[in-house]
Structures are given as C-alpha cells and as structure tokens.
C-alpha cells in the first residue's frame, strides 16, 4: 500500500477528512476490525468457558446429548463453511488485483454457501424441536434402546449450550450474509479495486471469524462421542 498516496483522483473521495492519507485510513479500519473480533472472542468465550466447566461436571449427559446431534448435517455444514471462507478469501484477492467482476462473483458464491449453512441449520433445529430436544419445553431424551435416558436433565444443560451457542453463531451468520450482500452490491457498482477495498477485507475478516467459531463448535457439540467415526 506504499503507493496509496498517489491514488488517482477518483479515489480522493474515499479518504475521510480526518485521516492524513489512505494508508492511515486503511490501517485504522483494519485494526478496528481486529479489535472488534477480540470482543467477539470474549463474547463467545463466555459460553465456551461455561461449556468446558459443564462438560467436566456432566460428562455423561454431554455425551448422551451429543449422540442426538446429526453427524452428517454437521459435517456437511463444516465443509460448506470452509468453502465459503475460501470464496471469501478469493473475493478479497480479486479486490487486491482489481478484478471487479470476480469480486462480485466470489461474494455471491459466499452468500450462497452462507445461506446453505443457514438452511441446513434450520433443518437441524426443526428436527430437534419436533423431538422435544429444546430445554424447558417438555424436554425428552431417549437412550439407544428408546427408553428415557437417565441423563435427561444433564443433557438438557447440554442442549441449553447447543441452542445458545449455535443460535448466537447463526445470528452472526445472518449478519454476515447481510454484510456480504451489502459489499457485493457496492462491488457491483464498481466501488472496490486495488486502491480501496478495506470494506471487503474487513467483512472478510468477520466472515472468517464466524467460520472459525463453527470450527470449534463442530467438534465440541457433534463429536464428543466418537461413535460415528468408529462405526
């Protein structure tokens, strides 16, 4: 970005009055995003800390709860999110190299992956709901033999974490899809190129962060018991 000070005239309007040059503005924006992501880590960190303690206290309940996760939907969703992060990274790369059309295409593909993730999540939520796996609402849990599990109340705590953690994650996904749509629209208007693409980079950082949260949620919620893997 060392040549940003010789930005052509059309980019002068990108510089806000209180910055000395585009480089300072870009550094400030990206740093702001990183600081924001730190707050997000602390936000999810509260739930992860609680999860850790309760899993230690109620290990069997957590295993029983985890057995009722749909392993395949979870795995497919993990792959979907990883792919979306790849296309997001490619969108940022396209911005860095001023390929205006490619930015839009990659962002649209990212949106599709994001919507696919949310769609699958809705299917999972629905099946948990109809099977009474929502805490506090006539909660049931059956063991392998179809009998009420002796760990029902502890699994209820597991499901409290499941709904809270994936719920807040899904909320972040919804916001993420909104943000990507917004910058996709601006990219389509030709707003971003190698001289000015900070919003693309920042939304990308946010998207990768939300992806990363899922990378932790997936093993913690779906893979506690290795039954699925060992057959």
């Amino acid at each position, binding site marked *: 970005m060392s040549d940003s000070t010789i930005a052509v005239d059309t980019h002068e309007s990108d510089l806000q009055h209180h910055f000395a040059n585009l480089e300072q503005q870009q550094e*400030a924006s990206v*740093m702001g995003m990183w*600081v924001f992501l730190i*707050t997000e880590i602390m936000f999810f960190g509260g*739930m992860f800390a*609680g999860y850790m303690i309760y899993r230690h206290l109620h290990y069997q309940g957590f295993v029983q709860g985890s057995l009722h996760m749909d392993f395949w939907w979870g795995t497919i969703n993990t792959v979907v999110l990883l792919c979306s992060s790849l296309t997001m990274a490619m969108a940022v790369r396209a911005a860095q190299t001023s390929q205006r059309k490619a930015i839009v295409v990659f962002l649209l593909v990212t949106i599709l992956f994001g919507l696919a993730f949310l769609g699958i999540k809705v299917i999972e939520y629905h099946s948990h709901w109809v099977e009474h796996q929502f805490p506090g609402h006539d909660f049931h849990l059956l063991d392998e033999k179809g009998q009420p599990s002796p760990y029902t109340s*502890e699994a209820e705590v597991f499901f409290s974490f499941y709904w809270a953690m994936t719920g807040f994650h899904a909320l972040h996904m919804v916001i993420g899809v909104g943000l990507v749509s917004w910058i996709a629209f601006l990219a389509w208007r030709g707003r971003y190129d190698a001289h000015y693409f900070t919003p693309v980079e920042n939304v990308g950082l946010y998207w990768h962060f939300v992806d990363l949260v899922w990378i932790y949620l997936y093993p913690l919620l779906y893979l506690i018991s290795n039954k699925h893997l060992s057959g």
Partner: protein
Amino acid sequence: MASAAVPLERENYLNKEYGIGSWLLTTDHKRIALLYLLSITFFFFIGGFFALLIRLELLTPAGDLVQADTYNKLFTMHGQVMVFFFLIPSVPAVLGNFLIPIMIGAKDLAFPRINLLSWYLYAIGGLFMLYTIVNGGVDTGWTFYTPLSSQFLDTQVVAAALAIFIAGFSSILTGLNFIVTVHRMRAPGMTWSRLPLFVWANYATAIIQVLGTPVLAITLMLVALERIFRLGIFDPQRGGDPLLFQHLFWFYSHPAVYIMILPGMGVVNEIVPCFSRKRVFGYRFMALAVIAIAVLGFLVWAHHMFVAGISLYAAMVFSLLSYFVAVPSAIKVFNWTATMYKGSVSFDTPMLYALGFIGLFMMGGLTGLFVAALGIDVHVHDTYFVVAHFHYIMVGGMVIAYLAGIHFWWPKISGRMYPEFWGKLAAMIIFVGFNLTFFPQFVLGYLGMPRRYWQYSPEFQVLNVFSTAGATILAVGYLLPMAYLLWSMRYGKIAGDNPWNAAGLEWTISSPPTTFNFDETPIVTHEAYNYGEIDQPKEVPVER
C-alpha cells in the same frame, strides 16, 4: 474559515451550525461529547433520585416510606442507572471523547460515525432503562444474580438486561474507537512516552471495555434466554450452576470497577501537575500503573464470591491477587503527592476536587484491602461496610474526578469560565456531604448492618440519620454546578485559550476549538508536563 459576517466570534464547533439536526447527525467528537454530557447528566439525576428515596426510607428503622418490594427496586435501579448509564460513560465518553483526539493532535477519533453510533446505542439502551423504570421496575439487585433473576422474579428483568446489553455495546464501541485512535491517529512526534497520562488512563480503560464488556453481554443474554426460552444453563434443578453466573458476571464487573476509576485517575493526572506548576512525578510509572491496574483487574473477580462457596484455595489466590492491585494504586497516590511536593500549589476548583479525589480514593482503596482479606470479608460481606467502600471509589473517586475534569476543561469546552467562588463552594459542600453520607456507613457495616435491608435495628438509627443528612447536603452540592455551569455558558467570563497556563496540546488551540481542532497538524517535540518552562504570571517558575 472565519466568516466575515460574524466578526465578533471566531467560528468554532459550537456556532458552526445550529439546529437539532446539526447535533443529532454530527460526527464531531466534541459535539458527541456534549450529547453524552447531557444524557449522562439526565441519568445521574434519575439515579440520584432513587438514592434520595433510599436514604429517606432509611431515616427511620421501620419500613414506613416505601414497601419492601419497592425498596428492592429502588436500590436495584439506583445501581444499574448509576453504574451503566452514568459512571461507565462519564469520563471516557464525555471528557475522553472531547479531549483524546485533541491531546494527541488529531482532527477526530478514528471512526467518527461509529462514535455517533455509540451515542445512539447508549440512548436506545437508556430508553429501555426508562421503559423498565416506568413499567414496574426491576428488583434483582444490580448484579442480576441467578436463580433469583432467572426464575423467581416477575419484574422487568429482560428489559433491564437488554438496556444494559445495548449500553454495553455503546461502551465497547467507545473503547474500540479509543484504542484505534491512540494507535493510529497520533500527530508526528507524539510518541507513546509523550502521551498525556489522561490518554494513557483512557487507553487502559478502553482495553477493559473491549475485553470485559462482551462477557457481561453474553452473561446477560443467557439470563434473558433462560427467562424467555427456559434454557437451563444457570438452573440448579437441571444441573446448571448459579455460581457460574457469578463468575461470568464478576469477570466483567470487577474490571468494570476500574472502568469507573482509571479515567478519573487520568483527570487527576492532568490537574495535579498544572496546579502544582511541576512536571508530573514518575511519568513512566504512572503510565505503567494504569496498564497494570487494567491487567490485574482481570485476575481478581472471585473476591466478590468469598462467601458464595468457592474453594478455600481459590479464595486465597484471589485474595492475594487482589492485594497486588494495591501496588499500582499506591504508586499513583504517592506520585501525585510527590508531584505536589515543593510545587507551587494553588487551590482553584479543579485542584480542590483533585485533592478530594486523592484523599477519598485512598480511603476507598485502603478499605478495599480490608474486604480483600478473607477473614475480614466474611465479617463485613454484604454489610454497609462494602457499600461505603465502593461508594468511596465510585462517588468519592470517579464522580469527584469527573467534576474536577468538567471544571478544569470547562473553559475549553464552553469558551467561558465558571464562577470560581461558587465552584469552590460546591466542591466543599460535596466533600463534606459525601463524607457525612458514607463515613457512617463504614461504622454501620462494621457493627453489622446488612446492605439491601429495608428495615434495621433501632440502635443503627443515629448513624443512618447522619448518612441521610449527608445525602441531602450532597444533593445540594450536585445541583450547584448544574446551575452555575449553565449560567456561565452565557454570562461567564470569556476564558481565552489557556486560562490555567497549562501545558498540553488542548491548551494551544482556541477555546472553544474549531471543528477540526487544529488549523494544521501539530508537530510534537516534548511531553505535556513541561511546567518548569511555562511562566506562571504571579509565581517564580519552579525548577523540577
């Protein structure tokens, strides 16, 4: 820039534009600071009104003024309004917002629009709080302890939690803005070791805001989810643990205590050298001390839970760590004293407040050591001793520092001087009123009067009458500055750019400042405490 049509007054941030729209849509950090000033003053008087009702109820041992449930709501909403809607935004969002860009030689904060968004979030959170208040209130105590808050109360818990959640985001965004601004917006030559200590203090505060507040946000959300959807994370009947709530809550709320004192220390850091005409003593240690307090503040939360059933070993570790906080705090107090030593001290209003701060903060800090000690804490836990202790920090410390700062920088903010006589009088009234209110509470607590009780044994009445009398005096002390500061905006003496002969970039620009603060970006060549080189008209310059 100056318009020829208005020859009398130079164009500044106040008279550049007029009308409601020019304020509500402004991105100027100085105007946003004034928006905060107005809104936190509003909430200060709401919180103060609750406090007055509490003190009136406690005038007699019998519960005769309000019902027991109403009393619970009064102290809950007093705490929530004062902590989240006055103390936390007080110095950072008003004085920090106004001064940080100017002190580092910048035209604005790094993200002016996010700054405005912070204020709107604060306002929306405030509206939720007002909704809570007028729709029956909330009686969880400001701490929202579960399972009381999640299962047993039928009051506006969710609305209050949302109010604080939203105001929390305002606080997070202010902190984020300050961190990025201090890192990226400093003028040429403004190195980290030349940064004014006020900026250091707000920077340390911003770190706490950014790291701590999200944990409070998720904790309150989990309580809200538990109430709305009946999740079971804090429900002991289903294997949830109410103690986890306390851990998460205090992980934020203990550092939040330092959000409520560090910026006040920053204010005193600027005032003491100016009115002692001396370089601040031990600049580096002063800067490191605020960072140390911010970091240590994250390691002591469980000292609020000594009697909640945590393990003895954990309690001992947290007790020891709590003692460590006393070290940087003592460095601050000693260095302020050393700054005054052999200085040429004058006692203008800001300095009176600053001296009050040092004394009262010391009382609050030292009694903090009492309650950090396991044995004494078991005795005084949940008594008025604790109430007195944290009011010495929050009111004796932060509110007084806030008033000190408002008076010190009022000439810069408004362009006019406040009336010095009334200023000194109000400072004295507040000091006397404060001590009369809260010192008896130390004694009450030590004698065993529990906090949050609506009735008490008759033998405690004398001290409670003292306390209520003090609160009345304190109220007069708070109303006075309201009146004369408003008066001074129109009738005060024109201040000039540097009425205190103070060092620091904010005193090199016009009062009130122009919208972009500096006509051209300043080049900084020295730190902001070179009082040895500034002439004081009536005094001989003092060698450091």
